[in-house]
């Protein structure tokens, strides 16, 4: 690292525990040891607040021991306002912070003074940042710093990634080179599928069948991390684990919906080595080196090979011991997926979805942040912004549209000439019309898309203990008396008061409503391709016997899905017609496909009633048999569906809401929001519907359509599937349910077809409620 200290950018790739963070600071420490640098020298950026605090402790110890004249401080959302003010007036030599806190710092008018003398920036976990808008925001902030401090050197620290040169281009400034240093990846991981006495069930994601075998592994290891893909699954598994934990092994739970105090308690117990296992989710994917983890268990198919490899790296942080990991498929299909993932890990074949050009909602926020810092020149800002890798291909027209959105709202109807948010001065520079609006902009900096969550508390006379958070949408479906799991305990829903969910302890052993929503990962393209290859094999000698028999039966009564064509099965069952589409495009895309195809079916009189989607297939049920599937899957029709009616779907509205918040059209935080009362807040759906109706070409709708190619809508994966099968659609009419389709009947998350159905449900509910209350309709 010292030899490369003067390179403009360096990307250091090493597995967790390789000491790479300290390596990133070596040139800084060498530089500062002389004691003649005044002011800020090095910025350290981490996606986690906790990591910034941890690195501060780890750095301060050697610096103090060596008696170096270096001041090291962290600055995050948790830092006191007093300390923050002092840091602005008199910055430390090394400042450890997060992308959001950095963006806020750049929004101050005295930013040039704060950052004067800045020499280096160290970006930790850059692989994780690069997958989200937080990374895009960071790179834009760095483009600003680069303009203020032209000699700024960048160091990125990353775990193993599939395409290091792409990550290097992402973090480098403009065309300047970024050297890639890869540390020895260490010995091959020791990874296998967990052997269980009972075979996995046909469907479901709980993996309750594996509890005895998992407990046995926990007993035989010092510390085990038990990863789950969703918070709900982690809760259910933890609950079942405790019911079977006869030896009372100390086991904790950790996920992002739990109250911060509870999470910190688990983390502290872990560091002290008091826990034998922690049931967790992605909340432990990054960050601190924790005690002696000697086993990682992944429950449920890993969905993504790269994430699996990074999780496996959490075991055995000693550099040259192999990491040990076990995969636990939750159902029979996941056995195939786990097999495919094991093959991919051994072949070091990592997956990654290309992220496309830098998102424009983040750019809009960046322009507003820039305006808070003082008047700016549009040409200069455009030059800065295109110096960030993700925005290198941004056209001037796109930039100008974002600037116009920030200034006037960018509407076809020019209504705000007098009241623009940004105004052009006589010299052509842009500035805030009303300097007071800077406060609102600063309060809403950030790109983290927290879904609307409500706090959950024990019901007490004076504010009970906080337990964590649940999604507002889930809370709205609860009626008093419903029971659910949170933090490993069963609670009873009592009431919703002032946006707090009040619950009481429930003595039962089984929650009535087991799951709450939450993001579900979709199986990656690469992993899906490997699964299709496995299915196409003539036999499966390395799969467990029940799974083998199941696949052979499928081949016998129907056929296997193949990589280069699209298998669709049609059969009657239980008085309904069914259509099963094996698209292997991942859960979100298969869900969208379900929406689009049922819409087409409704238009052509096939009377669909509902559908359910998994990572590999969509099962639709209805009244009429489908005899010709090709028109339902015609690419043009699907694309037209996305453009027209899918725009009114709730998923699109959620996508819009996130972008509108990031771009600064609507605000999460307003001063005195509590005082105004809740009737002041209007749903973002209203703005969305208004734009669709009166201004369909508006920038934010354009951004929403682009976002729909990924994420919850994931139309890009449907396009990929259509390209892969190139019109080769095979429809098999069967006498009954096929073996591959059978598990879909047990899947949760069945979607009724929207529209008329909803009004009918509402009418029924209205009649039922009135009758129950003894009222005439």
């Amino acid at each position, binding site marked *: 690292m010292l030899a490369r200290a003067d390179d403009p950018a360096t990307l250091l790739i090493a597995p967790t525990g390789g000491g790479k963070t300290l390596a990133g600071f070596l040139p800084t420490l060498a530089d500062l040891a002389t004691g003649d640098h005044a002011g800020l020298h090095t910025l350290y950026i981490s996606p986690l607040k906790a990591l910034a605090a941890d690195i501060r402790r780890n750095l301060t110890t050697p610096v103090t021991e060596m008696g170096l004249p270096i001041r090291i401080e962290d600055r995050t959302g948790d830092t006191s306002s007093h300390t923050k003010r002092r840091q602005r007036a008199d910055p430390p030599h090394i400042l450890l912070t997060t992308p959001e806190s950095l963006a806020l710092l750049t929004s101050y008018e005295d930013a040039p003074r704060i950052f004067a003398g800045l020499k280096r920036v160290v970006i930790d976990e850059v692989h994780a940042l690069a997958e989200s808008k937080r990374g895009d925001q960071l790179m834009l902030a760095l483009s600003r710093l680069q303009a203020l401090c032209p000699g700024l050197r960048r160091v990125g620290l990353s775990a193993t990634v599939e395409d290091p040169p792409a990550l290097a281009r992402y973090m480098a400034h403009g065309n300047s080179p970024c050297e890639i240093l890869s540390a020895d990846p260490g010995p091959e991981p020791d990874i296998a599928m967990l052997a269980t006495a009972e075979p996995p069930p046909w469907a479901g994601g709980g993996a309750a069948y594996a509890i005895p075998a998992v407990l046995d592994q926990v007993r035989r290891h010092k510390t085990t991390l038990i990863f789950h893909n969703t918070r709900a699954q982690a809760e259910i598994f933890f609950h079942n684990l405790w019911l079977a934990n006869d030896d009372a092994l100390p086991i904790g739970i950790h996920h992002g919906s739990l109250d911060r105090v509870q999470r910190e308690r688990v983390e502290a117990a872990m560091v002290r080595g008091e826990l034998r296992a922690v049931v967790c989710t992605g909340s432990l994917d990054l960050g601190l080196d924790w005690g002696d983890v000697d086993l990682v268990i992944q429950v449920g198919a890993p969905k993504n090979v790269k994430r699996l490899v990074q999780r496996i790296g959490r075991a055995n942080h000693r550099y040259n011991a192999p990491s040990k990991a076990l995969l636990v498929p939750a159902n029979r299909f996941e056995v195939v997926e786990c097999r495919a993932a094991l093959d991919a890990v051994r072949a070091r074949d990592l997956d990654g979805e290309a992220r496309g050009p830098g998102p424009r909602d983040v750019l809009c926020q960046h322009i507003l942040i820039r305006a808070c810092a003082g008047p700016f020149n549009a040409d200069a800002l455009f030059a800065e912004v295109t110096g960030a890798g993700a925005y290198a291909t941004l056209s001037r027209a796109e930039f100008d549209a974002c600037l116009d959105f920030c200034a*006037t*709202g960018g*509407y076809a*109807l020019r*209504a*705000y000439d007098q*009241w*623009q*948010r940004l105004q052009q001065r006589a010299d052509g520079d842009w500035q805030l*019309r*009303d300097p*007071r*609006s800077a406060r*609102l902009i600063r309060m809403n900096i950030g790109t983290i898309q927290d879904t609307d969550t409500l706090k959950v508390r024990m019901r007490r006379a004076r504010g009970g203990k906080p337990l964590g958070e649940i999604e507002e*949408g889930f809370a*709205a*479906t*609860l*009626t*008093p008396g419903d029971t659910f799991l949170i933090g490993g305990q069963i609670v009873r829903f*009592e*009431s*919703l*008061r002032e946006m707090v969910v009040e619950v009481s302890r429930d003595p039962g052993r089984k929650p009535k409503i087991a799951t709450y929503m939450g993001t579900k990962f979709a199986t990656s393209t690469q992993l899906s391709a490997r699964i299709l290859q496995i299915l196409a094999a003539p036999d499966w000698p390395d799969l467990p016997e029940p799974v083998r028999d199941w696949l052979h039966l499928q081949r016998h009564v129907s056929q296997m899905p193949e990589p280069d064509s699209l298998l669709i099965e049609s059969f009657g069952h239980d008085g309904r017609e069914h259509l099963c589409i094996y698209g292997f495009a991942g859960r979100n895309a298969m869900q969208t496909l379900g929406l689009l195809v049922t819409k087409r079916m409704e238009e052509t009189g096939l009377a669909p009633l509902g559908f359910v989607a998994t990572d590999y297939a969509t099962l639709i049920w209805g009244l009429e048999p489908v005899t010709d599937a090709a028109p339902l899957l015609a690419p043009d029709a699907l694309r037209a569906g996305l453009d027209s009616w899918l725009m009114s779907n709730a998923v699109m509205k959620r996508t819009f809401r996130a972008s509108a918040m990031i771009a*600064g*059209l*609507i*605000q999460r935080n307003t001063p005195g929001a509590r005082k105004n*009362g*809740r*009737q*002041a*807040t*209007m*749903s973002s759906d*209203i*703005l969305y519907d*208004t*734009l669709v*109706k*009166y*201004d369909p070409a*508006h920038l934010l709708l354009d951004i929403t359509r682009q976002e729909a190619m990924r994420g919850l809508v994931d139309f890009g994966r449907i396009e990929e599937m259509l390209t892969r099968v190139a019109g080769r659609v095979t429809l098999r009419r069967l006498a009954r349910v096929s073996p591959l389709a059978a598990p879909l009947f047990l899947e949760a998350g069945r979607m*009724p077809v929207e529209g008329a159905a*909803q*009004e009918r*449900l*509402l*009418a029924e*509910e*209205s009649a039922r*409620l*009135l009758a129950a*209350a003894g*009222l005439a*309709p």
Partner: protein
Amino acid sequence: MDGYQFTLAGTQLTALPSGALYWEARNLLCVSDLHLGKALRRARMGEPPLPPYETRDTLTRLESDLRRTGAATVICLGDSFDDSAAAGHLPDAEKLWIAKLQAGRRWVWIEGNHDPGPVDLGGAHMAELPAPPLTFRHIARAGQSGEISGHYHPKVRLALKGRSLSRPAFLIDSDRVILPAFGTYTGGLWSDDAVFTGLMRRDALAVLTGAMAHAVPMPRGVQRP
């Protein structure tokens, strides 16, 4: 006329699916909380410029209700404008549109907390309007009967077989009706808020707006000891 028909103080009224209230015997249409000019007002305050189409949208829906009912009297139940200056800032085309809607009708602006003063548009301006046996005012008063008010933007949410649905709603009991907000850019207050627990009788109904007007018992907050 589709909508939910009910009786208040011996008077037959209809809660229209749009959120307007129709009194057939007097051929009178009542709408509340239009909040015209909200987007522009927000921009004047230095807030983000919202899509400037809400006045157009609100007037379009009002016009369609007027066409369907042929109402001879229109009562705007307060907070018709987002602030006292908003009426003056409306674009000329929208002022003209309002004048066209007013032509040949009796039109009453009841004052609200957002728009307390008179507006420079046609129509009468009143603090409240007694129309025995009913009284029209912006904010409900405890202990009154035969009262028609707005102000709170009531909203209801229901759990429908695992899905949740929320709609602006009329709240109705034997003493009063509280109208949902008619304006396009309006949020709402859940019917289980303490305000409604105090104002509305135990057997109150909520009539949800939307494609059709659906009545349900008013979902209410839990009374605490």
